[in-house]
C-alpha cells in the first residue's frame, strides 16, 4: 500500500481530489472541446513516473462537438480494463504548444502497489536511484 497522504499515485491534474464523477468528467471534456483540443484515452498496468507511453484506447478523438461520445469511450475502456490506470489526455495542436494540455486519471486499481526505491551505492557518497514499480514484479496481464 502506498504511504503518501492519499495512498495513491498522484499523477495528473486531479489526483488529490475525490475520484471524478461522470458529470465532472463531462465538464472537463467540455472544457477541452471548447478549446478545440483532441482527446485521447490511455491505460496502463505500470504507472511508473517515466512510463510515458500508456496504451492508447483507440486513436485520439478529433473534431467532436459533444463530450457524450468520449464518455462512452471512457466507460468502454473502464469495462475492458476495470483494474488498470486510465487517463484522459487533451492535445493542443497550436503552434508553440503541440503537446498535451490536460491529463487526469479516471480509473485506477482498488489497491495500488506503488513503487520501491532501489539504491545503487557508487563512488563516495553518491547514489544511483531507480524507482521500481511493484506492479511489474508480476508478468503483463496478471498485475492487478
Amino acid at each position, binding site marked *: 500500500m502506498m504511504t503518501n497522504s492519499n495512498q495513491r499515485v498522484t499523477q495528473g491534474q486531479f489526483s488529490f481530489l475525490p475520484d471524478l464523477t461522470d458529470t465532472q468528467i463531462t465538464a472537463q471534456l467540455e472544457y477541452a472541446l471548447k478549446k478545440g483540443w483532441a482527446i485521447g484515452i490511455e491505460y496502463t498496468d505500470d504507472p511508473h513516473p517515466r512510463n510515458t507511453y500508456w496504451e492508447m484506447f483507440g486513436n485520439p478523438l478529433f473534431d467532436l462537438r459533444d*463530450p*457524450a*461520445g468520449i464518455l462512452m469511450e471512457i466507460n468502454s475502456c473502464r469495462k475492458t480494463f476495470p483494474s488498470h490506470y486510465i487517463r484522459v489526455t487533451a492535445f493542443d495542436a497550436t503552434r508553440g504548444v503541440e503537446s498535451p494540455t490536460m491529463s487526469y486519471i479516471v480509473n485506477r486499481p482498488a489497491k495500488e502497489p506503488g513503487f520501491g526505491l532501489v539504491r545503487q551505492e557508487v563512488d563516495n557518497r553518491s547514489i544511483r536511484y531507480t524507482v521500481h514499480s511493484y506492479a511489474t514484479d508480476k508478468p503483463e496481464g496478471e498485475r492487478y
Partner: protein
Amino acid sequence: MDDVKTVDLQAIVRESNVTAVLEQVDRELVGLAPVKRRIREIAAYLAVTRARKQLGLEASPPSLHMCFTGNPGTGKTTVALRMAEILHRLGYVRKGHVVSVTRDDLVGQYIGHTAPKTKEVLKKAMGGVLFIDEAYYLYRPENERDYGQESIEILLQVMENNRDDLVVILAGYKNRMDTFFSSNPGMSSRIAQHIDFPDYTQPELVSIAGKMVHQMNYRFDAEAEVAMGDYIGRRLQQPNFANARSVRNALDRARLRQANRLFAGIGTDTRNVTAEDLSTLAASDILASRVFDTPDSATST
C-alpha cells in the same frame, strides 16, 4: 388553491424562440404545406413534453428519432437542419449541429472496420443530429455477410441508450424505406416521427427557380422566365427528375451558356458589358437545353 401545479407554456415557446425557426421554414421553403404542418406539430409536441417534464409528468426522455421520406430534391436536408435547430432550442440536443452521412461513412470494407467507423460518426454527432441519407443501403439482404447489419446494430444500441445525446434522422425514398423498416422492425419501432415530403408541383418549381436565381444574383428576362416554366414542365416528365436539385442544375447550366454567349460577343460587340448583361439570363440560355430537342427526349443536359 395553490395545489394546482402550473407551467408557463408560453414562456417555454417564447424563451426558446422556436417560432423564429418555424417562420424561417415557412419563408425559405416553397410549398411543402404538409411538411410544414408536421414540423409545427412536432415543435408543439416537444414544447408540451418539456412542460410536462417540468411538472414531473414525463419520466424518461421521449424517443425523437425521425424518418424523412420523399424523392430527391424535396427539401429533406434543409428541414433536417431546421429540425436540429428546433430540437436544440427546446433543449433536446445540447449542440444542435447536423452530421450528414451515407452508408459509406458508416460501413467498413473488411472485418472489424465497421464498428469503429460507425462509432466515430456517432461520437461526432453526439449533442446534435445524425442524418443518414438513403439509410436503406445499410441493409443488404442479398449478402448475408454484409457489414451493414453490424452498423445497424450499433446504431440501434446508441439510439436506445443515448436518447439524451443524439437524434437520428433516416432519409430516403418512401417505398424503399418502407421495405427497410419491414425487414428491420427494431429500427422501425425506434422511429417516433415520420415526415413525408411530396414532390413539388410545376408552379412551385418555377417559384423555386425564381428564388434561386435571385440568390445567385442573376435575373431572368421576360422571355427567359417563360422558357424556364416551359423547361420545368418538360423536365418533370423525364426520368431521374430530382425536384429542386434538378432546377439548380438547370440554372447552373444556363449560367454556363450565358457566360459562353457573352464571351462569344467579344469583338463583335463594341460596347462594354454592363452589370445588367452579366446578371441577365436570356431565353436562349435555357432553350438550348436538350430537353427541348425532341418531345420525348430521355436524357437531359
